[in-house]
């Protein structure tokens, strides 16, 4: 009897089902594809971070995932585990994309998968939904601004690989396939101690998506899109491949107010936008195994480059952007190594005879090792830019960095420093410190320095008149980027707010000259302001509200005047409300943009500013299960009121846009 009981007990012990969830310790989001091992049996977490495995009390559960510190837990009698993995890749920003010390800064994380069924068909649409980000479009891509920055001060990463064009310094996210994206971490503020040159205004960290999906979309003005991604899981690996195709004719009607200003009757000033079309095609993929991660992306975007409403000279101009990138990261024992390459080619045709080609190629490699609380990194790379309007130029760069993390009770602190050596920009040291006190109300503060090396255009631009600007522009230096804020989590509600201040010396700004525009290092630039975000979930309602205000002043020493940064609104904000009832979901999204100067002037007059605008977007979707597939049918409208506004002066907008979409996903 006793023996029987002992055997049953052993069997019970042996058949203990262990369930758990693996989360990111910083963001709280589930970590997929983590390897969970108990007694030499291994499983991987799913998209929701969950796993189930058999184990016995006393067994050691080992959890590993590239980009995180490994964790080990001894099983007790509790068969339900919640494992928070500490992201180390955040520090290195190559493998998995999240904020360095993001817990000690103001940030926001957006789940692309959650909003792609809400009428967001392109990355251009997506950019307008990001909190703390100001996006504007004109005849080409999307220019981003964070905390009052200029576009080239925003560093955009995909799985840690920079997407900024080495030629211009700025990143255009409009051609990115949103089906390739998973999360977007919005990290306002300088972060050169981790990211190096360019991260002087903010970082937009994109990560590859997960799961399988198929979306067909259509909207006003002959816009259509098709995107698909499929995920395969086998032998501990997760491989995802997909593609995206998009077309937009964008032939919307508008009134040419410049013609009416020239005395042309209004009835003759009603026009239709021409040469405003866009064609996009992209292939992407990612692969994750417990000790390695790979990302690739190849895309081609062709656009008509119509000019401002009264300018006809661009009516036949077209541009094609080709992008390709590959990134591989791996755990090699105590070292984490990563390498990548990216190609960007821009082809411009004015429709007559003039053709311009610009290509850039970049190589990046780095390695990281953690010893105790200190992680060390070193790496390097090179950028090469060549084209018909540029002198061929190659720029090597190296860096070494160290990061120290400290925790005691409720207190956390980090200290980091990075030394960069960039050809044509010299050697730069970028330190940063942060401190945080966790509690019901978590307080955080951060301060650092940074820099931005001149882009190739800043150094090597050649005007159409063949006049070479000597490479005399130096790096711009963020001598102080500081923020202090607080976060409150209460049940289903989260509130966060921060004050920030950034001072930059030798800002690289382009000024008009006698024959062409040219870059100069100018005086000092100060940006200060505040931002806040509130999110609450009261089933069946969700509400997410953010607001930001800032003052920008570029002090020009020669003229002894200060001017605000063009196109940076003094205030902006957004609100998204969701209502779900069974298979029905309704989303209303409001975005507000304050007045913003179209030219940098001290105290710009009303005529020198674009008016404030508030845009409402409504979207309704209906979800149904068809066998093992979830189908989501969506209908909606952007700019519901049909407001005619301008993102960039002289460029008309399309007003109201109706959207429809069908998304198919496997049921979880």
């Amino acid at each position, binding site marked *: 009897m006793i023996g029987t009981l002992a055997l049953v007990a052993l069997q019970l012990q042996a058949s203990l089902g262990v369930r758990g969830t693996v989360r990111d310790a910083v963001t709280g989001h589930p970590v997929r594809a983590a390897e969970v091992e108990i007694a030499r049996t291994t499983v991987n977490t799913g998209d929701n971070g969950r796993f189930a495995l058999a184990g016995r009390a006393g067994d050691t559960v080992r959890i590993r995932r590239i980009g995180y510190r490994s964790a080990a837990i001894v099983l007790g009698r509790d068969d339900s585990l919640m494992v928070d993995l500490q992201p180390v890749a955040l520090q290195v920003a190559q493998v998995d994309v999240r904020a360095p010390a993001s817990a000690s800064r103001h940030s926001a994380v957006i789940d692309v998968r959650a909003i792609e069924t809400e009428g967001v068909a392109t990355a251009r649409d997506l950019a307008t939904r990001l909190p703390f980000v100001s996006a504007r479009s004109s005849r*080409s891509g999307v220019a981003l601004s964070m905390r009052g920055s*200029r*576009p*080239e001060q925003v560093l955009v990463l995909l799985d840690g690989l920079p997407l900024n064009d080495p*030629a*211009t310094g*700025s990143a255009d996210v409009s051609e990115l396939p949103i089906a390739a994206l998973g999360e977007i971490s919005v990290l306002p503020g300088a972060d050169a101690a981790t990211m190096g040159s360019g991260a002087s205004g903010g970082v937009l960290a994109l990560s590859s998506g997960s799961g399988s999906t198929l979306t067909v979309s259509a909207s006003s003005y002959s816009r259509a899109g098709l995107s698909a991604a499929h995920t395969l899981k086998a032998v501990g690996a997760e491989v995802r491949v997909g593609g995206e195709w998009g077309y937009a004719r964008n032939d919307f009607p508008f009134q040419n107010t*410049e*013609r009416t*200003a*020239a*005395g*042309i009757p209004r009835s003759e000033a009603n026009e239709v936008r021409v040469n405003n079309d866009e064609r996009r095609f992209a292939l992407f993929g990612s692969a994750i195994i417990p000790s390695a991660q790979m990302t690739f992306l190849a895309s081609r975007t062709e656009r008509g480059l119509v*000019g*401002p409403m*009264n*300018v*006809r*000279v661009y*009516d036949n101009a077209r541009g094609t952007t080709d992008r390709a990138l590959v990134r591989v990261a791996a755990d090699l024992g105590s070292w984490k190594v990563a390498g990548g390459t990216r190609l960007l080619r*821009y082809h411009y045709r*004015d429709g*007559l*005879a*003039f053709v*311009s080609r*610009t290509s850039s190629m970049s190589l990046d490699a780095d390695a990281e090792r953690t010893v105790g609380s200190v992680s060390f990194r070193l790496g390097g790379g090179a950028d090469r830019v060549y084209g018909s309007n540029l002198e061929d130029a190659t720029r090597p760069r190296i860096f070494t960095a160290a990061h120290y993390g400290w925790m005691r009770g409720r207190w956390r602190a980090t200290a980091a420093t990075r030394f960069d050596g960039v050809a044509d920009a010299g050697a730069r040291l970028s330190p940063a410190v942060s401190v945080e006190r966790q509690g019901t109300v978590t307080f955080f503060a951060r301060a650092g320095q940074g820099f931005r090396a001149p882009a190739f*255009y800043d150094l090597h*631009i050649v005007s*159409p*008149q*063949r006049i070479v600007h000597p490479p*005399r522009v130096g790096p711009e230096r963020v001598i102080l980027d500081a923020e202090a804020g607080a976060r409150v989590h209460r049940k289903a509600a989260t509130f966060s707010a921060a004050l920030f201040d950034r001072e930059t010396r030798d*800002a690289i700004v*382009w*000024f*008009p*000259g*006698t*024959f*062409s*525009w040219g870059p*100069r290092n*100018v005086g000092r630039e100060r940006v200060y302001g505040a931002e806040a975000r509130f999110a609450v979930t009261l089933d069946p309602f969700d509400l997410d509200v953010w607001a930001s205000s800032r003052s920008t002043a570029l002090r*020009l020493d*020669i*003229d002894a*005047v200060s*001017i605000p940064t*063009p196109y940076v609104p003094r205030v902006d904000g957004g609100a998204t409300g969701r209502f779900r009832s069974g298979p029905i979901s309704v989303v209303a999204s409001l975005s507000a943009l304050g007045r913003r100067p*179209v*030219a*940098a*002037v*001290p105290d710009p*007059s009303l*005529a*020198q500013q674009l008016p404030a605008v508030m845009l409402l977007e409504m979207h309704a979707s209906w979800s149904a299960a068809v066998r093992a597939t979830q189908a989501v049918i969506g209908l909606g409208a952007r700019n519901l009121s049909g407001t005619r506004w301008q993102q960039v*002066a*002289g460029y008309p907008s399309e007003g109201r846009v109706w959207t429809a979409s069908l998304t198919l996903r496997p049921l979880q």
Partner: protein
Amino acid sequence: MKIVPRFLPLPFAAIVVLACSDSTLPFEPPVLQPGALILNGVGETGVTFVPSSGAPNSHIDFGASFDGATFTVLDNIVLSTSSSLKGDQLYVADLSNGSLQRVQLPAASNPAGATFLLSGADGARNFAVALRNSGSIARVEMRAGLPAGVTTVANAGLCPSDVFFAISALWSVDANVMCSTDYAVAGPGRLIRVPQLVSDLGRDTIPLGPAIISPLRAFAIGNFAYVLSSGAFVVPAAVVKLDLMARSVVATRIFPQGAFGATMALGANGMLYVTAATGFNPYLPKVYAIDPLTLTFQGPFAPSGSHRLLTTASGAEQPKCDAATGDAGGRIYCIDNGEVLAVLNVFAANGAFVRSHPAGTLAFDVTVR
């Protein structure tokens, strides 16, 4: 006429433009007093009148769709144009009442210099505009209360950069560069005579000589014309004098090696004032005064060159004149552009600093009244 590049390479985001001077007021007509009239081509565009009396400036706003680099002034009327990058328009400002009229020129024609033609018997005001990209001249006829009429005269050169009317003919300054593409130099500049405005009776083409590369600006004085060539790296700037009756080059004044010309103005004292620089970094254009009769540089000269000696209040040499002209007394009016603001510096005929005025935002042309 400054040639504005047609292609500016891609997204240069942060663009700084203008600022207002506290002393600038909206235009208050009529202003019949001595002073300088300045063309603000970037920022708070338009014309700014700077009275010599020290009274507040007046300004006529041309708006954001303007990028002109030169103007032509006759009595109270100011002509300037926006390039194809800003919508191909002729701007006609009336200083007597502060009004502004804009005339739409052919799309993508890339207007440059403009000039006055004889007024019609019915009171119509007539103008001519050089259209760079279409190689033609636009003839603009404006009648009160009616939309402006625009006709074009073709075959005015590869890239007409300026136009003037003299001895009963229209003259086109052909820069002879590939305006509509990449501004590549096709050959030396030319002056093309258009005998009738709207007929096709043929053209007389006067080669300006191998030293005249990319001519920008021209003035006619009597039967003679003076054309400024901006030059290039290996060919310095030059001013060529032509006998319009004989239709031939009389003389050419070559600037110092490496100098490229930026602006040329006809001073009220009859002198030509050219600004030219010998490098981009630093970019420090100097003032050269040229006697149109002899085509010789006029002093007093700076110690190290043939440009005018201009001294600041402290006695140092005036560093920079982006545009300049002279008044009847030989005083020099010099525009010094900062990063967004312009300053008008006035110098005596001997080069001594006289006074300084705020002149609005970046300025590219100046004349005196």
